[in-house]
């Protein structure tokens, strides 16, 4: 056993390494990982398949300050943001109207609206100055293995060698799958999202959303509720205000779309034509259409995060909390921790799976695995009750507020009594109990989380 280990090390030592660390994928995760390694003076190569980093990426619309500051420190001040998002609304849609809640604070804000093309460009400029060797236009086809260790990557043109490879290649991570670090995702494990970037005059956006001219405030809205006739589709719409564009998109569970044979663009068109949203985007011109997958695998279906000579991070590891629309912060911080682990491994010249599992320990200590653990069952609980959440309650809210607001010259007591009793008449009582139990379990999950 001892002898085998020695030969292993000798064989690995034989390789002529091009770098200390190779990072695959130049999104927030890979960039953060590469920066962490470069800051310690080690040689790091960052590879990306796109001609321009960021041009394959799509998200709702905002990146978060705390994680960005943690990674980019003082450079954060130069972030090319379009608006600071400080107003958050949640609207429950019914076919003709909505019920919504808004939270806003003009002093404190965490979310910054930035287009991905500009965000990645900005991040790449910073890390190049810190010594990261960035190679765009470079598709990694395979990992190079030797004695069960990942020792490099194979691109279309050549092989690059490094004792550690960090996989930050996004939700579809063909490399993590190729290594059998994760199982094949099922349609239920992902959300398919489609979005339109809608161009409007800056002044018009400011008028419609009551925004200041200096770009220091902005709005995001989340939309819940299925169109009439569409049942059992777990979906959510989103809107973000940018400088002179509005991002309007929708995400839905892929399995639900397939089961119900609904194209995601139909849901996007439903939102665009809804009474609540249509006036907001009126006369807007679609500048770009995009689509992307969001992993919802969470804690329960987390891949194996490390193997000999390799670490998986960001979307590739399924680090997303879709209840709170968090993902870019998970990417930035998990990338940083992957970089930190790589540095420890280089220090100790130990690249074994056992040693690299330090990464998992670091994640456990951070908000990433704490939150993913806390929310490990919440998405499934909400998903199971989606017919209630998406179809039943938005319409019950409509009925409630109709009574509250309509001066229809009828007895209020009678109307409210009927409304209250309707909860027991509309559906099987079992459904109501199940909804209540779900809500109770979600609260318990959060209260007794990590």
């Amino acid at each position, binding site marked *: 056993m001892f002898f085998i280990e020695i030969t292993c090390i000798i064989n690995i030592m034989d390789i002529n390494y091009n770098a200390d660390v190779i990072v695959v994928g130049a999104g927030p995760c890979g960039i953060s990982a590469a920066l962490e390694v470069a800051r310690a003076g080690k040689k790091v190569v960052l590879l990306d398949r796109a001609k321009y980093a960021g*041009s394959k990426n799509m998200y709702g619309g905002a990146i978060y300050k705390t994680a960005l500051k943690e990674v980019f420190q003082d450079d954060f001040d130069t972030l090319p943001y379009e608006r600071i998002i400080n107003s958050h609304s949640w609207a429950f849609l019914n076919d003709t109207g909505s019920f919504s809640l808004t939270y806003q604070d003009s002093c404190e804000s965490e979310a910054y609206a930035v287009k991905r093309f500009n965000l990645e460009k900005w991040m790449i400029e910073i890390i190049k100055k810190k010594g990261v060797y960035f190679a765009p236009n470079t*598709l990694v086809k395979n990992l190079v293995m030797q004695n069960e260790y990942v020792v490099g990557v194979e691109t279309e043109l050549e092989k690059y060698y490094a004792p550690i490879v960090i996989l930050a290649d996004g939700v579809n991570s063909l490399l993590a799958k190729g290594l059998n670090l994760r199982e094949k995702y099922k349609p239920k494990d992902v959300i398919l999202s489609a979005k339109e*970037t809608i161009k409007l005059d800056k002044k018009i956006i400011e008028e419609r959303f009551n925004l200041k001219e200096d770009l220091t405030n902005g709005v995001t809205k989340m939309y819940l509720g299925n169109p009439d006739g569409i049942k059992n589709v777990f979906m959510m719409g989103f809107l973000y205000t940018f400088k002179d564009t509005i991002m309007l998109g929708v995400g839905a569970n892929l399995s639900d779309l*397939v089961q119900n044979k609904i194209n995601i663009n139909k849901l996007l068109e439903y939102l665009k034509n809804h009474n609540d949203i249509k006036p907001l985007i009126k006369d807007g011109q679609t500048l770009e259409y995009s*689509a992307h997958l969001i992993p919802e695998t969470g804690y329960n279906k987390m891949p194996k995060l490390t193997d000999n000579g390799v670490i998986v991070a960001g979307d590739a590891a399924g680090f997303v909390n879709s209840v709170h629309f968090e993902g870019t912060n998970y990417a930035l911080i998990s990338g940083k921790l992957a970089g930190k682990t790589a540095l420890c491994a280089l220090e100790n010249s130990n690249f074994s799976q056992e040693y690299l599992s330090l990464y998992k320990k670091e994640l456990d200590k951070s908000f990433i695995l704490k939150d993913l653990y806390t929310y490990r069952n919440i998405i499934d609980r909400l998903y199971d009750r989606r017919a209630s959440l998406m179809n039943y309650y938005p319409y019950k809210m409509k009925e409630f507020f109709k009574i509250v607001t309509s001066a229809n010259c009828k007895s209020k007591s009678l109307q409210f009594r009927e409304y209250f009793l309707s909860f027991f008449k509309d559906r099987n009582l079992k459904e109501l109990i199940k909804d209540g139990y779900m809500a109770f379990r979600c609260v318990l999950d959060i209260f007794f989380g990590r």
Partner: protein
Amino acid sequence: MEDKENKKSIQDKLATIKYNCDNKTHLIVDQKKCAKCKDKPCLAICPANVYSIDENTNEIVVQYENCLECGACRLFCPKGAIDWNYPSSGCGVVFKNS
């Protein structure tokens, strides 16, 4: 919204996107497996209308040039008939405003 109307709507939206077109397909379908597939969800679900059916040959036509590289078809294809890869280096969709 009718399916035909939706296809047209997607087609119009695809016109807003910039592509750096690859000279070979990155999506290879196994027509034998497709022939046995009853549902063919790829025809309805793809957000970029990549998949259609040739009415003469009954084969799946793949317009890989329109692909947004989301990866949905890779997961939902019930026959596992799609060999899904990334386009060559620097090729494929170029989102500039997303």
